[in-house]
């Protein structure tokens, strides 16, 4: 028995592995399921209505839903963002935050800092596009309909 334990176990394991299922997840044919609080793209509520498509080419893809009660002058998200990815732009006379996903580091500090919960998180992670402008999230100008939510 002593002699048997001096042989490296990899010889037998290698043969047995030929007949076992591989450990690979065959992405993109099989997509992994992420936990629901994974830190992916922010400010996206995929199932929310009254949102505009920003042009990533996906039909029910990511969109912006900024509630009308956002106090655009508190600017806490702009102040706290470590990557300086949020800036306030003027949309239809109102000032709203615009998030640039080419600068964002997905730390979700803005989700924590916003005192009114206007920025929420989602689990959408397939952000690769060929057009850099598609990564700049312009806020939704239609704030009236969302007031009721």
């Amino acid at each position, binding site marked *: 028995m002593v002699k048997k334990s001096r042989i490296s176990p*990899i*010889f037998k394991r*290698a*043969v047995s*592995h*030929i007949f*076992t299922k*591989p*450990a*690979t997840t*065959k992405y993109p044919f099989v997509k992994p399921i992420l936990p629901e609080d994974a830190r992916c793209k922010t400010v996206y509520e995929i199932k929310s209505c009254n949102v505009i498509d920003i042009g990533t080419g996906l039909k029910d893809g990511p969109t912006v839903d900024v509630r009308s009660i956002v106090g655009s002058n508190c600017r806490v998200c702009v102040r706290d963002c470590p990557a300086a990815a949020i800036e306030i732009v003027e949309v239809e006379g109102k000032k709203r935050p615009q998030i640039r996903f080419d600068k964002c580091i997905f730390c979700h500090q803005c989700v924590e800092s916003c005192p009114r919960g206007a920025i929420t998180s989602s689990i959408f992670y397939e952000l690769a596009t060929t057009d850099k402008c598609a990564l700049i999230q312009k806020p939704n100008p239609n704030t009236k309909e969302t007031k009721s939510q």
Partner: protein
Amino acid sequence: MIDFTLIFRILVFPGFTFILLLTLFCDWIERKIEARIQNRVGPMVAGPAGILQPLADFIKLLTKEDITPRDAKKTIFKFAPLVAFTIMVFAFCFLPIDGTSVFSTSGFSGDLIVILAFATVANFLLFLAGWASCNPYGTIGSARVLTQFLGYDIPLFLIALTPAFIAGSVQIASIASLQAGTFLPFIVLAPWAFVLFVITMQAELEKDPFDVPHSESELVGGLETEFTGAKLAFLHLTRDVQVVFGSALVVELFLGGPYGPVFFGPSWIWYTLWFVLKVIAVVLISEYITTVVARFRIDQVLSGNWRILLPAALLSLMLTVALVTWVYPLVI
């Protein structure tokens, strides 16, 4: 008089096209087996189960830019990969694949030594290719290739003579057909020689654990550093043909060549089938050894050759001669 049968045999079957297809197929098997041992999927997208992946890699390399460095020795640099590939395929043509060799003959006495010499020349051309590229990594890499294959050629020749002693001739076709005639492949008569031959073949083909010329951690690309485009495609193809050639040699010398039971119909179909199956079996063994071990250092490779393998080869030869002269005539 143009002999269409001969041209067909050289170009299509069992000549150039067949050898190329067998090479690509064995490359796919190697990659799949290595991947499965490592618990992952191998190629899986190009063609069903990824079987067209080696062909796709070859075609991709052909479309890349072909650069020749300014200081390289142009003639050797440009033509060495292609010439090495041609010599390897030519050496392959002497092996009996479907009962007879590609040239429809059963070879000539001494052709075992000739094709081993061809393989050495092809390896030497690869060394020259790396040397001519005038890159420090290429120079060191090709020097290591030279040291390794020249060193291991000596035990290779010695061990390859073992079946020749048992069969009593230096003609590959006779060695192979003798095993079919007596139904005793030489792996049974001289198993020590089989093991040593497989190990020496690993070193000749520069596979793990004798992988030093390829070790990226030290040498970037070894002798392939400066090659791009079509030249790199042919270098890789030459390596793959060498692997299949080595396996085919093992099959001819120890496993009975293409000869095996014929059940119905023309015999050459069955001979080709047995040949392919046996080559795949040897490729599997070789790839298994490659995957489960680490890589030796260059000084360990060289000391292993001169201190262990060469005395072992001599001992094996002496043992075989003794057995053939005194024991086997009594038993068989």
